[in-house]
């Protein structure tokens, strides 16, 4: 089961590279925020997988909870801030 969890973590890391690539080469600023939201979604799962591998889930679960709240509020604040016209 350790090997399966390590494989899941590595594949999640490989998928999040796609989101970072979309942040780098997105044409508009909305595309970059969509990529950032995608990376934030993957990071929550990745934190719990890291906690299961190390066997200290009670430490990492609080970090994952706080990170999910901050990612959600950050996306809402960016969408409120960018809702008027601009470049």
């Amino acid at each position, binding site marked *: 089961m350790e090997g399966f969890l390590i494989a899941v973590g590595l*594949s999640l890391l490989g998928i999040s590279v796609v989101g970072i690539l979309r942040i780098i080469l997105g044409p508009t600023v909305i595309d970059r925020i969509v990529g950032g939201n995608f990376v934030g979604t993957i990071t929550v799962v990745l934190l719990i997988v890291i906690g299961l591998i190390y066997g200290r889930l009670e430490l990492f679960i609080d970090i994952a909870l706080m990170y999910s709240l901050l990612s959600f509020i950050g996306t809402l604040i960016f*969408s409120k801030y960018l809702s008027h016209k601009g470049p």
Partner: protein
Amino acid sequence: MVVLGIGLVSLGLFFFLSSAIGLMRFPDCYCRMHATGKADTMGILFCLLGLALFVLHKGLEGERLLLVIKILFIGLFWFIGGPTATHALLRSAFERGVRPWTKDGKEILEWPEGES
């Protein structure tokens, strides 16, 4: 129970992979939001259910029950919060004046004259 957990995590990884392909290949930010909405709801819900089954497999004392409840709370929160964030982002992109992509280049909506 471990086999069921492995199946659920693999299903969630499939949703994440298809969402990543859509994020890379689609031509417009609206289409990309449609692709990442799948990872926001189904992918993270299936992955967290599978990981909760992994925790539940090692025994069910008081502390592990708290861990399972916290994991399921994160899944429920993302199941509500992910579509909310996507909806707010799409609304801001629409008010910002981002034109939707069409195949033949014609407009599908009547946009006011003189705006971006």
